[in-house]
């Protein structure tokens, strides 16, 4: 029982982090049509900026609010100055450009904060543990399990009930038609890209208290996020949620019961989805 409960919580908390990263990635892809390799670097920047701000104002909450906002601002700059120029070009240009941004950001982080490891403290209220069967379980993980669905619900409501959310969805379905009915698509694109960057950075800041910070930390998570996005359906919001949870649980239960085969499970899942349902669980037919 303890094994099951512990694995469930382990999988859910990891899945929630994956969800935050993936939902930004999938939204940017759905609306802009850009597969953003640098998304993991925004995740990393979010964690580092959160740490840096906590050196100035020793509060995790200030760090987690201000840090991702700064990254969102960087997203605006990158979209306006770089991405905008290549929307009409071949898709390989996007891959090259976003990959270049990734290399640039990774090295910048190394130059600014050095190549060493850093740790970020969880806020006092979430730092402790609670009794859990015979052992203890960290409160911060429970916080992740709770905050993930809350953010997910907030995003879902935004997309479904607000005008802006509907505009974003409309533009995602048909960019030209959206432009035709008077939506200012360039502005929308900037906003969506900044929003995606903000989400990645928020994920990074949330991950900071439970994993060490090192340059290129984003490269590790981006691969799993891509898997989430593909199995959930490119551009699909519920797909990202389901995919992230599935991958999180596969990770925890796979470790417990599948032994070394666990490593292969996400990729087997990916292969099966691509073979039998290439548009993903929630993806639209293309």
């Amino acid at each position, binding site marked *: 029982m*303890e*094994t099951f409960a*512990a*694995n469930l*919580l*382990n*999988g859910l*908390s*990891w899945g929630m*982090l994956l969800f935050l990263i993936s939902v930004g990635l999938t939204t940017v892809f759905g609306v802009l049509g850009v597969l953003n390799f640098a998304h993991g670097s925004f995740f990393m920047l979010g964690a580092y900026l959160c740490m840096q701000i906590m050196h100035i104002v020793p509060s995790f909450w200030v760090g987690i609010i201000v840090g991702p906002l700064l990254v969102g601002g960087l997203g605006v700059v990158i979209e306006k100055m770089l991405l905008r120029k290549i929307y009409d070009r071949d898709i390989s240009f996007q891959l090259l450009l976003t990959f270049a941004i990734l290399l640039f950001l990774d*090295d910048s982080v*190394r130059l600014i904060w*050095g*190549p*060493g*490891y*850093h*740790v970020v403290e969880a806020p006092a209220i979430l730092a402790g*543990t609670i009794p859990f069967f015979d*052992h*203890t*379980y*960290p409160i*911060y*993980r429970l916080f992740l399990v709770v905050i993930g669905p809350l953010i997910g619900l907030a995003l879902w409501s935004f997309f479904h009930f607000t005008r802006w959310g509907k505009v974003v969805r409309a533009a995602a379905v048909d960019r030209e038609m959206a432009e035709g009915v008077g939506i200012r698509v360039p502005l929308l694109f900037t906003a969506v890209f900044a929003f995606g960057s903000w989400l990645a950075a928020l994920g990074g800041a949330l*991950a900071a208290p*439970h*994993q*060490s910070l*090192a*340059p*290129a*930390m984003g*490269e*590790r*998570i981006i*691969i799993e996020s891509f898997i989430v996005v593909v199995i959930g359906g490119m551009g699909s919001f519920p797909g990202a949620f389901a995919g992230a949870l599935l991958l999180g649980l596969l*990770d*925890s*239960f*796979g*470790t*417990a019961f599948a*032994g*070394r085969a666990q*490593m292969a499970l996400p990729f087997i899942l990916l292969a099966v989805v691509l073979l039998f349902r290439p548009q993903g669980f929630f993806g639209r037919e293309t």
Partner: protein
Amino acid sequence: MRRQAALLTLILCLAVFFTVSQAHAEKPVKLGFVYIMSGPFAAYGQFAKKGAELAVDEINKAGGIMGRPVKAYFEDSTGKPDAALRALRKLVYQEQVDCLIGLDSSGVAKSVAPSIPQLKTPLIITHAATPDVTGSVCNKYIFRISLNLAQNVKTAALLAAQTKAKTWTTVGPDYAFGHQSWEYFEKYLKEINPEAKFLPKDQVAFPPFKTTDFSSYITKVMQSKPDGVLISLWGGNLIDFVRQGSDMGFFNGDFEVLVTLGAATEVLSALKDKMPEGLWVGSRYWFLANQSPLNKAFVKNYHDRYNEYPSYNAHGSYGAIMAYKAAAEKAKSCGKDAVISALEGLTIELPVGKITIRAEDHQAVTDACWGKTAADPAYPIRVLKPMKIFKGKDITPAVADTGCKM
């Protein structure tokens, strides 16, 4: 005609002057370093560079190697065998270095080892711990100055035999290093204590290198209710594991914990008081293990210059340069073959203590230090109290057991 003669004389004089002055300015001794300088493990390359620069400056200030200044060239291995081999080739063919020093990853070291003889240049390994480079794939050109996996794990087994723990399990990175650590631990502990039991392969934990969330592995190991756990994770993996494990009650004392690379300063500095007390931790070099004047001076100079305590990788590159200097001076030459012969059987005092490079397999016989993590108000990081020093000859496998055939 006379003016032409005068001009000719002048040119001749200048030519002679420059040739002479060039002969007087000694050609530098070139050392090439290949470490991980980018990506998530760039910290290790940085440490090695710091140690190397300290050694080079010290040597040059004291008159160089036999009067020749030392010049260091650094290349990035990126942690990948092909990039590392390119870097090694570049250093030998383009920079024409006299000696190669480096290599962090065991995987890289093992893959490039067979190609080193083509370069005809000695390579002193300072970090990569795989027993194979001074074992099954050893060759004339490869030396290792640092403690290898077999020596470190033998020490762990000696410690494990002193505990009451009967059933052992492991958490290690899912590549050769983690698996070999467990394999050697099992072998050595069984030799000392035939009663010891080891959990089967499917019950031990080998998280992939890229893991950042170790919770499921922590749960798995705790559920298997062992008496003792050998942890061979290192770097960021170890930091994440310790933090997440602490919260989940992994270090509450339900079982013995031996961490083979837990005394690495980069791990202790990142964790500070988050490192639990009372864990047995080891390292390749611990800056407080040796009270010799040489070690004290090394730690002080390093701390004055970089404001941190030397990590084992800094000691590795520092030690390799000092060993090269000693070998060149012993051979009275920087010729590659002369240095190789001089390195064989060389005994030299390094900050870590007196080491001897065995002529048969080119592995340094060096002392190992393990200790229990403890708080000390004099240091910002956890230190080792009590410390146990294991003699090099007690922990180094016999040459016959290494599988090395030169």
